[in-house]
Every structure is written in C-alpha cells, then in structure tokens.
C-alpha cells in the first residue's frame, strides 16, 4: 500500500499543462478564423436574431461534444453518443405528447434515457472491459434500434413551451447562448470535484491512477453516465430546434462530436483537455458549415464540403497537437 502515499498523478499534470497550451492555441486560432470568416460572409450573423438562431442550431452539437469530451478525457470513447441523442429525443417526444404540462416529465425522460444508455456503456466498458470503440459502436446499434421502436417514423409534436423557451431571450441574451455559457460554467465549477478529477486521472494513466487508489472502474463508469445525461439534454435541444422527433438524427452527431473533441485540443488517448475546448471545436465545425452555406455551394455539394472541412480540421489539429512521447 505504499503506492497510496504517492501524490495524485503529478507527472500527468505537468504534461497536461504543457500540451493543453499548444492545443488551445490552435483551437483559439481556428475559432477566430471561423468567426471572422462567417461574419464577413454573412454580416447578419451579428444581429440578435442571427446570434440566437445560430446558437440554437449549434446547441445539440455543442452538448454532444461536451458529452464526448468527458468520456474521452476519461480515456474512453463514445461512438453511441449520436444514437443516445436520437433515443432520448424520441422518448421525450412520446412522453410529452405535445402537452406543455408534461415538459418537465419530458426533460426527466430525456435525461433519464441518456443516463440509462450511459450506464449500459459504462458497464460494458468498465466491468466487461471491452474496447470502447467497438463496444460503443455496437451499443449505438442497440440504441438506434430502440429509437426505431419508440418512434418508427419522424414525427410527433414538441410542446410549444419547449420550442418557445428555446427561442426566448433573457435580458437580450438569447436562451441558446445562455445554455452554452451555462454548460461551460458548469464545467468550471465542477471540474475540481472528486469525480471529475478521478475521471481525468483514469484517462491520463489508468495504471498510475489505480496505484493512487483512484477507483478506476467507477470513474470510467461515471464518465459514461455523465456523458449519457448530457447527450440526453442534447436530445431535448434537438427537439426544441426541430419541433418534432426523428429516430434517424444520430449518425452525424457521433462523427461531429469526435471531430469537435479533436479540434478542441482534447487528446484521444485521454487525460488531456477540457470540454470548453470541445465547445469551441463544435462551434468551429458548425460555423464552417454556415460558411459553406453562405458561399452558395450547390446543395448536393454541401455534404462533401462539410466532410472535407472535418478532415482538414482533423489534419490541422493533428499537426498542431503534441506528439505522443512514448
């Protein structure tokens, strides 16, 4: 038990500070470029309405990116994040049945579904010790199958109070912006908590964390549950945006969230980075598609251009990221 007296993962802290700095610079630079380019091409982005509607469309991706970030920092990966969003949104739509009075129940249902999905992922990865990549790819299949069961075809009505709240502004600041800021602040407040420190330690070096008496399995489990809950919220954001349910929305979100995490300077090997980087990453990616939209690309070319932008962003972050030392 001498290992227990060792300081909590000191070497990874040093290594973290050093590498975060490099990656954050690249992320910040990309963010500035994306914002400037988007505004230059589409000046009405700066109007209150422009900001509100832009952030409203960004919100699902931003939330899923934060969810993905927590899992990745914990040394895992969640390819089922998109499917969780789809499942929790259709569950919420069916539960609320378009009635305002049931909006709170819908919120609980969405988050509850996300937590349940996260628990399954967490159990599979931490207790069964399956490789996260393939295991969550498989669980994505389970979740999207269930989403089809809950809502076979796109449809359903979202209560007006939900779509309304989503479009509201408090003291001229749009709700969607407030929500993004709230998520970022939430992370800043909570990051010093034991659970999140344990998650980071686990992702940085599971063996060292284990030796320092960090409950590695529990931390992995917690990272997936937390991530599932946030993905559930993203499901609600999707509903607020679209006004109806769709069991097929998940696919792009898994890719988008992973890309946002990478662009946001979070190392896929775990332990390094912050969900705030992922928020920036998500905004960069979403802005790039806004830019593609505004330069008048034909509709059929947009998906290709968006895909190429993701690859380029990945390549740029890969070049800017610190090299693996081993």
């Amino acid at each position: 038990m001498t290992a227990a007296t060792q300081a909590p993962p000191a070497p990874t802290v040093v290594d973290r500070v050093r590498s975060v700095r490099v990656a954050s610079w690249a992320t910040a630079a990309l963010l500035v470029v994306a914002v400037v380019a988007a505004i230059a091409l589409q000046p009405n982005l700066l109007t209150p309405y422009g900001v509100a509607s832009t952030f409203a469309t960004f919100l699902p991706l931003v939330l899923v990116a934060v969810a993905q970030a927590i899992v990745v920092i914990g040394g895992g990966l969640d390819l089922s994040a998109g499917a969780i969003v789809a499942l929790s949104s259709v569950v919420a739509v069916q539960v609320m049945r378009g009635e305002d009075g049931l909006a709170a129940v819908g919120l609980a249902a969405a988050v509850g579904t996300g937590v349940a999905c996260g628990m399954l992922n967490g159990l599979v990865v931490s207790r069964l010790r399956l490789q996260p990549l393939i295991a969550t790819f498989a669980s994505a299949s389970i979740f999207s199958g269930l989403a089809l069961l809950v809502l076979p075809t796109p449809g359903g009505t979202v209560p007006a109070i939900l779509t309304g709240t989503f479009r509201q502004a408090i003291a001229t600041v749009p709700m969607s912006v407030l929500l993004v800021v709230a998520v970022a602040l939430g992370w800043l407040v909570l990051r010093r908590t034991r659970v999140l420190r344990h998650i980071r330690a686990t992702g940085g070096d599971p063996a060292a964390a284990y030796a320092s008496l960090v409950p590695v399995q529990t931390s992995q489990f917690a990272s997936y549950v937390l991530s599932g809950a946030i993905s559930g919220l993203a499901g609600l954001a999707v509903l607020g945006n679209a006004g109806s349910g769709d069991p097929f929305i998940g696919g792009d979100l898994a890719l988008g969230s992973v890309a946002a995490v990478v662009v946001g300077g979070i190392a896929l090997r775990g332990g390094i980075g912050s969900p705030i980087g992922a928020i920036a990453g998500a905004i960069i990616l979403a802005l790039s598609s806004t830019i593609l939209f505004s330069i008048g690309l034909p509709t059929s070319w947009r998906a290709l251009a968006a895909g190429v932008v993701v690859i380029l962003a990945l390549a740029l972050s890969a070049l800017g990221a610190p090299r693996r030392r081993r």
Partner: protein
Amino acid sequence: MSRVVPILKDPVVVAALIAVLLIAIGGILRPGFASPDQIVDMLRVASFLGIIAIGQTIVVLSGGEGIDLSVGTVATLGAILASRTMAGDDAMIVPGVLLALGVAALIGLANGLGIVALKIPPFVMTLGMLGVVGGLILVVTGGRADGRAAPALVSLVNGRDVLGLPGILIVWLVLGGAVTLVLRRTVFGARLYAIGTSREAARLSGVPVRRVTVSAYVLSSLFAALGGIAMVGYSQQVFLNLADDLTLPSIAAVVIGGTLVAGGVGGYLGSAVGAIVLTVLTSLLTTLAMPEWARIVVQGVVLIALLAVYGRQRRLRA
C-alpha cells in the same frame, strides 16, 4: 470453456458450430429454413459481407487500433459508380468495376496517408472519410440513384450457373483463398502480422511500417467496393444507402472469427465464417418475423456478447 478439447477453443470452430446450430434451430422452427436451396441463398447473401470483411480483417490485423469505419459507404459508392457506368449493359461491366475500384483505391490511399502521415487515429480518419464519401455519393448522384446492374453481373450473383451454385460463391471462395494465401505465404502477409503485433519491433526489423499500413487501408477500400458491386448484382437497382449498414457487421464478422481487435492475431477464414454466422442470424430473425428495430438491437447485443467472450482487455491488476 477451459477444460474442453483444444479444438473447441479455436474461435473459427466455435463460430462454425454456432452457424450450424443457428441453421438447425431455424430448420426446427421453420421447416424449409435448413433446405439446401435456402442455405445456398444465405451463403450468397453472406458473400457481400464476406468480401467486405476481407478488407476489414486486413486492417484490423495491421494493428495500431486499426479499423475501417468507412467500408459501408465505400461499398455503396462502389456500387453506385459501377452500376451507373454499366447502366444495364454487359459491355460496360469492366469499365464500371475499374472505375469503382480506382475511386475506392484513392479513398483507401487517403485513409492510409491520413493515418500514417498525419497520425490521425484510424477510427477518426475513417469516420471522417465516412462523411466525405457520403458527400461524394450525393455529388455523384445528385441525390437520385439511377444505376442498373448489367445482366451478366446479376446472373453471376442471382443465377446458379456454376455447378448449380451462384458464381458469386466461387468468386468469394477464390478471393478468400487468395487472401489467406497472401496472409500466410507472402512477404506482405508476414509484414502485416509483424506490424500488427508490434509496430516498433517491426520497424526495427526493417519492415516498411508506413507502406504496409497504407496498403492495408487501400485493400480495405478495394474489397469494400467489390462487396458493394456484388451487392448491386443482387439488388439490381442501386440505392443511396445500399451497403451503409454493413460496417458494423463487417467488424462483427472479424471479431466473431477470432481476429484480435488489437491486431497481429487471426485470419480470414474466421471472418468468412463470422459473415456466415451473422447472415444466418439475420435471416433467422427475418424468418421469425422480427421487426427491423429488433434486428438492429440484436446485432448490437450479439457483437457485445461476442466481444465479452473474445475481446476482453486485461485487468489493471490481476
């Protein structure tokens, strides 16, 4: 499991037994399920997945967290390019197939270069490529799929011309045999296993690690396109998402076949049997009138269950 005869611990044997068991169960529940005709039919459907799984096997064997999440869309793109070129004309089969393979090779090359030169992790690179290829499909088709398979291709897949068997089974057998030979008996095969086991050791022994890795991803895209082309021979018409859903099964087939997801251990025979197991399972579920959602769920559950048997990672401390 640990006390039985060694041969029963071989994943390939286990998978083959599972396939036989599934067919037997189907035969009991629905008479006719296990008839020779029906079995040939299932093998025919398994061949598309089996051909795609060849590439997935090679990529997984190459190690370094190797995986190709773009095979499904690449297969779809291959099918679209080939069938649009053929447009129902036998004379255009060769150009169609060559075009599909050429484009697929470029996609695989991009995957491989992104992975070795830019050091983007394989799953991120191929996931990103999935988006790009999906976009490419929209550009090529303008959102409307209108290709038609040539009659000769259709009869290769749907006819029973070779010894009463569909020609595609022979094609699958030849491809599978060739790949097994390449893996076991050639320098490329030896190098592939070497880099899959340890990149560092392979590099120090003079193996051109980067070149072999890139080749693995090029081969993966090539076989994916071939699988897609075979599939369009089966469906005759092409769809915008024809083979998109085959990515997960292709990985599942590799895992069922006992190839280590960490790389370096395994072979194609197992993946072929894995493709058969998955296809038999799907047709069994279809025969039992399971709705689509249940089939999707079962696929995921099966993969997790199989991983739990074969693919568990080691404990932090034993």
